[in-house]
């Protein structure tokens, strides 16, 4: 139980983001929920990669660093790609929100449904 506590806190953070997506009516709050869930997923991958007493995955010219003492570098590479993609999707969501506001004059998604047609 105690060995998995960071993972569990990370899942709780993800669930808070999902809760915002499914229960909020304001579209900006929904975008913030997407952003929080995305942070939680990135954090989970980096937590999986951590090794106790490990070093960063960078070699040095001046000192000897054993490859066995490094943390897992593969999730770092995946998360590095994922962060930039997350920013791109966030920008697209913001563009959609601005267009919806321009069309309906509100950020409330339930009122958008009433105003349709």
């Amino acid at each position: 139980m105690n060995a998995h506590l960071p993972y569990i806190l990370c899942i709780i953070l993800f669930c808070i983001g999902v809760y915002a997506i499914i229960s909020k009516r304001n579209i900006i709050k929904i975008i913030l929920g997407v952003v929080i869930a995305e942070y939680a997923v990135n954090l989970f991958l980096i937590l999986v990669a951590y090794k106790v007493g490990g070093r960063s995955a960078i070699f040095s010219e001046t000192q000897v660093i054993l490859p066995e003492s490094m943390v897992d570098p593969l999730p770092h590479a995946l998360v590095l790609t994922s962060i930039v993609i997350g920013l791109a999707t966030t920008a697209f969501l913001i563009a959609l929100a601005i267009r919806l506001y321009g069309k309906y004059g509100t950020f409330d998604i339930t009122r958008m449904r009433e105003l349709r047609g």
Partner: protein
Amino acid sequence: MSKEHDPGMSVIVKTVTRLTVGLILLYGIYIILHGHLTPGGGFAGGVIVALAFINLDLAFGGSISASIFSKTSTSVVEALGAIMLLSLGLIGLRYGGFLENFLHSDGNPGQLVSAGIIPLENIAISLKVGAGLFGIFLILIAIQKFESEKK
């Protein structure tokens, strides 16, 4: 340049921006070029370079950065980055496969000129990411200016 029509933020912000924007740009270029030696690389460096221009845009009200970078020129720079990445990959076809690192034996590891095509790919990705994000920023901010003019 009358005071009433002077766009942007206050004099303090403009002066500090004038002093620091070159340093931000230099730091971004350093991060890009040393991506194979230190933390960073094309993604982070490209976003830092885009942040330097976003800083100019926010402080001076868009007149300066719009004169440097219009929406068309950001698209051109972004396409240039994509073409550079793809052509590096296509050159690699001659040496064994798409995106093959065909120069990796040149230079000593740890020097600036080493690691084959990885620094070149870093430059291509930084062009793509920086120009793409700055283009998105320009579009979002331009639409906001249009809506405030309409009112």
